[in-house]
């Protein structure tokens, strides 16, 4: 949590943007990096443990969810999870059929994996920025970035995977036609071969890079805004009328995540009781306001509302980015299948 002074705010932001890195440090050998400086010194021989763990975890979640739906797949009346999964699959199938005209068994499952996996990775952005890092901090994990798609390694890794497929199908389908496409396009004359080769190679390489960097840029910016709102949120917590006093009494300067967790559970409980019909809606809103006020003071309430507002807007962004990545992948693969 950040205090009011700009130095610790910067520190807070930087802390949030640092991955948990395990790598080969020139001085310490294979170890976890302590801070961004050491991580940078490790160079290429390092791995972002948090990004990998979350991305693999979410990928496994995707596989498990869809596999359990597939096991229940029936030609009869679909129910529950299967309905939901079929909705997604039908959507993907429609999108793929719209833009991919070849016959390829790989493209549709690829598109499904990309869409759902990226959506899940982006979705981590909607969890409160401090929640999981703070909780992990308590068990001794110093750094944690829970949104894998704000890591360029992850997005570019997927884009490169797509790139490999593009090259593979270009060569498989077109054969030498692919080479002539690289050399005899757009100027169909032997003298222009170097120019053509340069232009086409740049064009070819731009595809995976734009693919990966677009997703990374969008998610990184979104995450950044969450963090910036959170800094005002946290600053407000210190200055809050009731909350500030309470924090000072219980936790001193540093606000513990447990406090936020308790407030969060209280708010969720009130909302849940309202949904069960035990509390009228007016009183629910009032109680939530009171808890939020106790939790962070009035400024923090503003911060919380801003977080919420941005999260609502961000739902569109994360879905759209997952969809764009998927559609562009399909389009690129479709181009790899078509002769010019």
């Amino acid at each position, binding site marked *: 949590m950040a205090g009011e002074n700009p130095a610790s705010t910067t520190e807070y932001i930087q802390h949030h943007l640092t991955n948990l*890195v395990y*790598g080969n440090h020139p001085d310490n050998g294979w170890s976890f990096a302590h801070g961004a400086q050491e*991580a*940078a010194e*490790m*160079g*290429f*021989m*390092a*791995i*972002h443990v948090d*990004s*990998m763990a979350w*991305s*693999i975890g979410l*990928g496994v979640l*995707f*596989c498990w969810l*869809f*596999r359990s*739906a*597939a*096991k229940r*797949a*029936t*030609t*009869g009346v*679909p129910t529950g999870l299967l309905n939901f*999964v*079929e909705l997604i*699959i*039908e959507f993907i*199938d429609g999108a793929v059929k719209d833009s991919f005209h070849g016959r390829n*068994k*790989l493209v*549709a*499952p*690829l598109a*499904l*994996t990309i869409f759902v*996996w990226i959506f899940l990775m982006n979705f981590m952005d909607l969890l409160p920025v401090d929640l999981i890092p703070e909780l992990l901090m308590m068990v001794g994990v110093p750094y944690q970035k829970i949104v894998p798609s704000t*890591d*360029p*390694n*992850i997005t*570019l*890794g*997927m884009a*490169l*995977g797509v790139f*490999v497929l593009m090259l593979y199908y270009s060569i498989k389908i077109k054969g030498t036609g692919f080479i002539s496409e690289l050399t005899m396009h757009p100027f169909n004359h032997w003298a222009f071969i170097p120019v053509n080769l340069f232009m086409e190679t740049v064009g070819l390489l731009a595809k995976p890079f734009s693919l990966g960097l677009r997703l990374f840029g969008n998610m990184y910016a979104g995450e950044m805004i969450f963090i910036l709102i959170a800094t005002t949120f946290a600053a407000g917590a210190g200055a809050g009328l009731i909350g500030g006093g309470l924090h000072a009494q219980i936790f001193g300067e540093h606000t513990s995540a447990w406090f936020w967790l308790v407030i969060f559970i209280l708010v969720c409980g009130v909302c849940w009781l309202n949904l069960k019909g035990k509390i009228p809606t007016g009183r629910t809103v009032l109680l939530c306001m009171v808890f939020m006020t106790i939790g962070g003071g009035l400024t923090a309430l503003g911060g919380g509302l801003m977080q919420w507002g941005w999260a609502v807007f961000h739902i569109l962004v994360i879905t759209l980015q997952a969809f764009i990545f998927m559609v562009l992948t399909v389009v690129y693969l479709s181009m790899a299948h078509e002769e010019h």
Partner: protein
Amino acid sequence: MNINLTLFGQMVTFAFFVWFCMKFVWPVIIEAMEERQKKIADGLDAADRALRDLELAQNKATDQMKEAKQEAAGIIDQANKRANQIVDEAKQQAVAEGDRLKLSAQAEIEQEINRAKEELRARVAGLALAGAEKVLEASIDDKANRALVDKLAAQL
């Protein structure tokens, strides 16, 4: 923002998940969906066909009903006509029988009358003879006077 091994880690993971999806998820679900689609289409077709069949059957039933009604009406008409006919015939027969009975009764009565007349004549003849015998107290030849007396009796 360091590019490092994570890149390859993600590529490998990506490949694995795509393989998993391609092998265990996509074909299973898409096949089930397509099969269900076919089943639903078949079902709708069958429903359409059944509806058409039902309509045909209903039309047929209505036609048959109409025919049956007409037939029934015809039969009732015929039966009524026949009944009237029978009643008429019976009346005629009864009248004829009555006439016949009346005639035969009249004939019998006349016969009876004639017989009674004959008898009476015979008795009158006998009585007349006995009276005459007594009156004359003479022995008159029965045979000689018989013709005379019969002639007398015939005049009665």
